[in-house]
């Protein structure tokens, strides 16, 4: 009989593969389909299941759950079985006074009467409660009561929706060590304690250990919450939609994005990479100059902020090409920031490392530097990077705090704020600082310290309250173009919170305003970075379902961006992007413009041709 089932399963799978595309929820399932059924890998996709709540992370503490509560949740009686758990529960309850076991869910349709029989058997144990079916709106309360979720399965039919829900609410888990759940934990960095299937003693000791340790649960809760926030269902659905778009536009695309475009994309990589590494914009010590002044044939001094931006850009380039040279250069940038730039005696990151620039520190620049360091840290795990990022992020609060706002600039070493100059955005506080506050959001994810998250939320609140009055802000239209650059920083800073209605609406309005102003001022003055920022947020907004990307507009903006790229026999001027143009190109070749423009063009190409999902943390 098992043989017959196997044959039937194979036939059924084969029939299902008659679809154009098949998506499965574990990478190993995809490999299996490709290997056993010889399916074209381009038609079989792995996509994570996704988590549902948009209010993730905020309840990821899991130390206050009283009384100690173990939750079991699902459709019971087939491969999800409660016998072992119930048999050993009395020992758990004995060792953890006041502990209770909540069993939620129904019988599986194939196992009628299963729960009722168990309920009758354990009726005397008052610490066990059978809750039955709970509607969707009661699940938040249920999961928030849970100290630990238990998954007592004998096998699995695939990924686990329950595991994903537990991540959403930052709940620690104990599970039977079956391959699918182990793979899921590994793939999505979910923290689960396992017990050998069928081994009740280990199950019991794992539960007791977790229930007794606030620290351990807290640590697991944070990790799971962070895993949950990295795979929200909106992101998963965004991936599906990209595939649909690619499929339904296949014919059109064949003429639009052909081999020529692919090759020109490859060229873009190497041109930008070459300029960053070999044009001399990066000094020997790993610091990166603010500009190359083409007329004077010299670099402006190295800037810590620009080095941070360059570092983020190189991490992206390395991720995309796998080329070691980008990795080496990124490490060099980071060492420059840590060893040479950081001023340990006053625990602050100066604006520049030489001359007058040593005497100031910028709030915004610190944020960019933290993000660069963390981008590399996420790949390398080097503790120096994280430690430097934490110190910079701490300085951002300690040294710049001004009530509800943050000073833009302080002096060093005495850390006095410079007077704000309202007409100059970089000399005043404002919604643009939200991009720097992304550093705190990332530090929260890296360290689990809620204080960093609160800081991000504080700047988010302030920025949402003030962003409408940021534009135009000044009369001179060229200065307005400069403020568009800053305003785009605000929009970029919204990305982690893009599921929140207020942020969605701010993004929608903001893109519209940014695009309109840019269009109006462009004949007189246009900055390449502004166009790149606009195109990037358009793509993120489309992905999040905030506004849909109009292909013609995107292509038009990409064409404008391409016009800023320099092709020149002099290697100092070849491959980078110019800062801006009035009636003619302005003679500054700028690393930030270059990495922004690169990312915008790269994202658009990927958006059009593949099913890639863009993460906010990858935004340079």
């Amino acid at each position, binding site marked *: 009989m098992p043989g017959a089932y196997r044959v039937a399963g194979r036939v059924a799978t084969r029939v299902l593969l*008659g679809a154009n595309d098949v*998506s*499965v929820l574990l990478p190993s399932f995809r490999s299996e389909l490709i290997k056993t059924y010889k399916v074209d890998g381009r038609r079989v996709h792995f996509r994570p299941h996704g988590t549902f709540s948009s209010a993730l992370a905020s309840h990821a503490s899991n130390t206050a759950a009283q009384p100690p509560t173990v939750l079991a949740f699902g459709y019971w009686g087939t491969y999800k079985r409660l016998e072992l758990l119930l048999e050993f529960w009395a020992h758990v309850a004995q060792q953890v006074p006041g502990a209770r076991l909540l069993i939620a869910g129904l019988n599986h349709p194939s196992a009628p009467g299963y729960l009722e029989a168990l309920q009758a058997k354990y009726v005397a144990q008052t610490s066990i409660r059978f809750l039955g079916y709970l509607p969707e709106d009661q699940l938040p309360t249920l999961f928030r009561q849970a100290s630990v979720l238990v998954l007592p399965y004998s096998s699995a039919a*695939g990924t686990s929706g329950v595991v994903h829900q537990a991540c959403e609410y930052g709940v620690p888990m104990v599970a039977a060590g079956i391959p699918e759940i182990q793979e899921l934990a590994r793939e999505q960095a979910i923290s689960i304690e396992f017990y050998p299937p069928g081994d009740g003693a280990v199950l019991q000791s794992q539960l007791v250990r977790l229930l007794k340790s606030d620290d351990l649960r807290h640590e697991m809760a944070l990790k799971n919450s962070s895993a949950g926030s990295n795979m929200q269902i909106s992101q998963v659905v965004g991936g599906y*939609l990209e595939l649909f778009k690619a499929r339904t536009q296949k014919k059109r695309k064949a003429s639009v994005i052909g081999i020529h475009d692919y090759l020109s994309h490859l060229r873009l990589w190497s041109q930008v990479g070459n300029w960053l590494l070999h044009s001399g914009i990066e000094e020997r010590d790993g610091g990166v100059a603010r500009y190359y002044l083409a007329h004077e044939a010299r670099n402006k001094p190295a800037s810590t902020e620009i080095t941070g931006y360059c570092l983020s850009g190189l991490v992206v380039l390395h991720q995309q090409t796998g080329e070691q040279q980008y990795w080496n250069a990124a490490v060099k940038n980071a060492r420059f920031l840590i060893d040479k730039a950081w001023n340990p005696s006053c625990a602050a990151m100066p604006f520049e490392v030489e001359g007058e620039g040593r005497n100031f520190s910028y709030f915004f620049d610190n944020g960019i530097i933290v993000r660069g360091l963390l981008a590399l840290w996420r790949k390398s795990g080097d503790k120096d990077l994280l430690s430097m990022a934490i110190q910079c992020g701490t300085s951002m609060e300690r040294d710049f705090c001004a009530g509800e706002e943050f000073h833009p600039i302080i002096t060093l070493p005495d850390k006095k704020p410079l007077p704000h100059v309202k007409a100059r955005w970089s000399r005043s506080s404002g919604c643009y600082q939200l991009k720097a506050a992304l550093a705190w959001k990332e530090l929260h994810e890296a360290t689990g310290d809620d204080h960093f998250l609160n800081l991000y939320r504080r700047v988010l609140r302030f920025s949402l309250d003030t962003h409408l009055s940021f534009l135009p802000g000044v009369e001179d239209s060229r200065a307005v173009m400069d403020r568009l650059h800053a305003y785009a920083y605000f929009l970029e800073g919204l990305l982690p919170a893009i599921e929140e209605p207020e942020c969605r609406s701010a993004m929608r309005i903001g893109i519209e305003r940014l695009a309109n102003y840019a269009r109006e001022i462009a004949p007189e003055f246009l900055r390449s970075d502004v166009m790149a920022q606009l195109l990037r947020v358009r793509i993120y907004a489309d992905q999040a379902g905030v506004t849909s990307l109009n292909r013609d507009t995107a292509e038009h903006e990409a064409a404008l961006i391409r016009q800023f790229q320099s092709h020149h026999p002099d290697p100092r001027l070849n491959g980078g992007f110019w800062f801006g143009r009035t009636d003619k190109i302005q003679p500054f070749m700028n690393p930030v413009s270059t990495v922004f423009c690169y990312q915008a063009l790269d994202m658009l190409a990927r958006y059009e041709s593949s099913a890639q999902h863009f993460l906010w943390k990858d935004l340079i």
Partner: protein
Amino acid sequence: MQQILERHEGTRLSGKQSERLKICLVTCFPPSRGDLNEYGFHLASALRKHPAVELTLLADELRSVEELDGFNVERCWRFNSMLTPARLLKAIRKTNPDVVWFNMGFSTFARAPLPAFLSITGPAMARA
């Protein structure tokens, strides 16, 4: 295996770019408590937020139905019915979508072997 997606060969978007992507999501859908209804609900909720998507749910029949607000639901197939593939195809033809997305496992449409088998031919047949 949980989801199968499917597309009609017609390239609706090839003419006008501004036209919305028309998606049929075949799924159990609340208040039904059928297989994967919860996941279907969350998929539909996320899809509904996209301005560029026009979503129709092809869902399982219920005795009495009070549909959730804001979803375009057509109840056009029944659990364990041999007629499911034919009825689905009819509904798909009527809606004429760009994409048909099956949110399914092997036992989503039926428990009895024959209807279950017939039902999983849906995705392949929808290509026609």
